[in-house]
């Protein structure tokens, strides 16, 4: 496969290694040490680190600045970018800014609605949607042009990703929706957290039946549960999340002080099972405010050491 960017993530996937990515949420303040410390915990166990973009619409340090801190550490950031807060001028401008620091990966998202965050009275922008953001980055990269048609000097060479939720409704368009993102030009996918493995496998089979697994690298999203309470919360309150009763029960049946351990165990078992699923090209481990557990999960799941690519 001919590489289109200098992305380390692209190289790993092109060399048919199972990729491992993780993510760090930037702080609600300007101290760079927070992001540096989180990245330090996981840097030897992952190939790339996503930096979230004001996730759940809570105002934080910007994703781009946090990505630059990772770059200064010699790490491989994935710039998450939501269409909620920026119009097409700001999006293209930030893409160029990121490219100027050789940030080689971008994840195109629409973003949670602002009503969930700390600025629920604010406007949302949604000048373009996540599908169109994929098209925009590919257009800038491959055509070397702005949306307005003008030529870009040194176009951004970014490996383009997006999210997919195999569990959101309506289920029947979950695969067509992925097909649409592939047609828009997406190159890697990080999925929503997977707890319902049967349903995920059903989705993957449909993805493979359409041959989409040959056109896009799919990284399965994993989030270890800390407590039975977290599992219940995610089941009931988080939109688009599918947590089967047996997962909640398994945690609830575990003594409180051991629930975290059990959550990690569930996560490792899931990775081991999904490693064998056709079309799964890696794992995106989102240990929310629990980054220190990522190395343990990666090692126990047999994904360590990480491959070296030039």
């Amino acid at each position, binding site marked *: 496969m001919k590489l289109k960017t200098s992305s380390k993530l692209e190289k790993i996937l092109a060399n048919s290694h199972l990729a491992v990515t993780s993510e760090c949420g930037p702080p609600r303040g300007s101290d760079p040490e927070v992001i540096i410390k989180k990245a330090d915990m996981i840097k030897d166990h992952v190939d790339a680190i996503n930096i979230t973009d004001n996730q759940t619409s809570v105002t934080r340090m910007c994703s781009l600045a946090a990505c630059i801190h990772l770059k200064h550490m010699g790490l491989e950031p994935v710039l998450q970018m939501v269409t909620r807060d920026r119009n097409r001028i700001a999006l293209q401008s930030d893409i160029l800014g990121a490219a100027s620091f050789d940030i080689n990966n971008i994840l195109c998202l629409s973003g949670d609605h602002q009503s969930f965050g700390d600025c629920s009275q604010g406007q949302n922008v949604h000048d373009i949607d996540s599908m169109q953001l994929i098209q925009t980055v590919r257009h800038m990269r491959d055509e070397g042009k702005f949306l307005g048609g003008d030529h870009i000097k040194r176009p951004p060479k970014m490996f383009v990703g997006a999210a997919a939720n195999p569990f959101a409704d309506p289920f029947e368009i979950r695969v067509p929706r992925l*097909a649409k993102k592939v047609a828009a030009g997406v190159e890697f996918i990080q999925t929503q957290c997977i707890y319902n493995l049967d349903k995920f496998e059903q989705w993957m089979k449909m993805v493979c039946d359409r041959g989409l697994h040959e056109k896009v690298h799919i990284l399965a999203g994993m989030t270890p549960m800390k407590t039975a309470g977290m599992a219940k919360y995610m089941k009931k309150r988080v939109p688009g999340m599918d947590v089967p009763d047996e997962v909640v029960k398994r945690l609830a049946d575990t003594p409180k002080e051991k629930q975290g351990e059990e959550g990690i165990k569930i996560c490792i078992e899931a990775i081991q099972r999904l490693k064998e699923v056709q079309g799964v090209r890696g794992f995106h481990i989102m240990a929310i405010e629990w980054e220190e557990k990522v190395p343990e999960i990666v090692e126990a799941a047999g994904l360590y050491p990480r491959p070296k690519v030039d």
Partner: protein
Amino acid sequence: MIVADKKPIEEIVEEIKDKEKILILGCNECVTVCEAGGKKEVGVLASALRMYFLNQGREVRIDERTLERQCDHEYLEEVRDVIDQYDAVVSLACGVGVQFMAEKYHTTPVFPGVNTSFMGVTEQRGVWSERCQGCGECILARTGGICPVSRCAKRIFNGPCGGSTNGKCEINPELDCAWQLIIDRLKALGKLDDYEKITPIKDWSTERAGGPRKIVREDVQQ
């Protein structure tokens, strides 16, 4: 129609409490249908204000009138001969009517009596919901007759987003996911294959983003 909701009376009182001769001016169009600013609501507001001023021990003249429309010159002209009798008008028309009234009667204070909310439909008596944001470039032909601009909280053109659950929107479990509706409708029309056509980036210059809009039709101008 343009759907409006009544303003809290305290807010109206705050604006007019120092006035002595007030005209409550209703509108016989949209705000009548949505029961926020028609003849009936003019009467209710006028009574409430009379009660308020009575309790304050003040003698304030409050007159009622409802025009056919407040967005056309000819109907607004109907109050020209009486407007000087008032030191304030509370217009229960939508924001369009309030402004046209203010433009026409430059020295008379005009206060809004309703909050103009959206362009929508009467789902059932007492329930109105939004259907159109007047983006100036209608795409309903491509979305099964359901508008993602006005009905999706993120106005997503290639939806649904990951927050769609059981056909409802992530921001409110009472709110239908517009993209669920679009998909259901495409299915009913036997056009679900159209779902996979990517909707291109929208030209928003015909919307609010392009500045205040105006349509000039020479064919109907006299």
